[in-house]
């Protein structure tokens, strides 16, 4: 099973450039078709299940608009 991940988008930084959309290996990103941020851009959002938390979107994002999380096993005694 691939790792589970998720992203948070800092909407007001996003400029809807779609670079992350194109880069996402899972193809789970798209611009929010209706929503506009204060600058008038449609911010990106997760549109499907399948984010692995690989972080590639964050690596290519010019606006540092993305926060990426991944689920990992944590062992406690």
């Amino acid at each position: 099973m691939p790792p589970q991940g998720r992203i948070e988008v800092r909407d007001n930084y996003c400029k809807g450039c779609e670079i992350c959309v194109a880069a996402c290996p899972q193809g789970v990103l798209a611009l929010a078709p209706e929503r506009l941020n204060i600058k008038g851009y449609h911010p990106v959002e997760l549109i499907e299940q399948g984010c692995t938390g690989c972080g590639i979107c964050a690596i290519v994002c010019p606006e540092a608009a993305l926060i990426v999380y991944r689920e990992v096993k944590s062992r406690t005694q």
Partner: protein
Amino acid sequence: MENVTMQEQLVYDRPESMASVQTHYCPGCTHGVAHRLVAEVIDEMGIKDNTIGVASVGCSVFAYNYFDFDFVQAPHGRAPAMATGIKRVLPQRFVMTYQGDGDLASIGMGEIVAAAARGENITVIFLNNANYGMTGGQMAPTTLPGQKTSSSPGGRDVEVAGFPIRTAEMLATLDGAGYVVRRSMHDPKNVRMAKKAIRLAFETQKNGLGFSLVELLSTCPTNWGMTPVQALKWVEDAMVPYYPIGDYKVNPALKELKF
């Protein structure tokens, strides 16, 4: 007994060294990526309080707004001279210039060559986007042969306007240069390589190994008349062949470094 649970781990967040403000860059412009990478490196090295940036004239003129450390802003092309002034009186600080290709390779050629020859212990982040972004997309010294710009409307004619300058290769001929490389930001792999290079450039400075410069192939979707994603492709297809990614000068001492 061991307890295995799934826990969410932070993979990526905005670096601390970036100020909490929106940039004025056009959507998809890789100036932003370069900013982010610099900020990440500075965070990782823990030198935010210890760094002074020098913004140049170009789209990155407001870089001082976007980084959360001290900054000054230089006249067009003169960032290396300002950086020299700062570094000479504060040799323990990290000093970085952030310059575009018009700024560095056209009007500022004299200053960058002199700084490199002096082995000035500064780090230069050099954005090559093959045109003058801020003033509306005129020809830069880095504009490719045949490339149309607002001041080479028929495409750059090398017979008249000459040939693009491969800055990294040229500066690498200077003995004062400690680390001079070219990287690109057109895909995740290259972004990662770019970040490593920026780290090495700052390590060069940290270790007093001389002048360091990372040339970053960058996009200007607005003036190229492309979408951001098309622009990345153009970097890969048109720019990289002319401006090969590579290490042009690496002080051998850098290879020994552990960090």
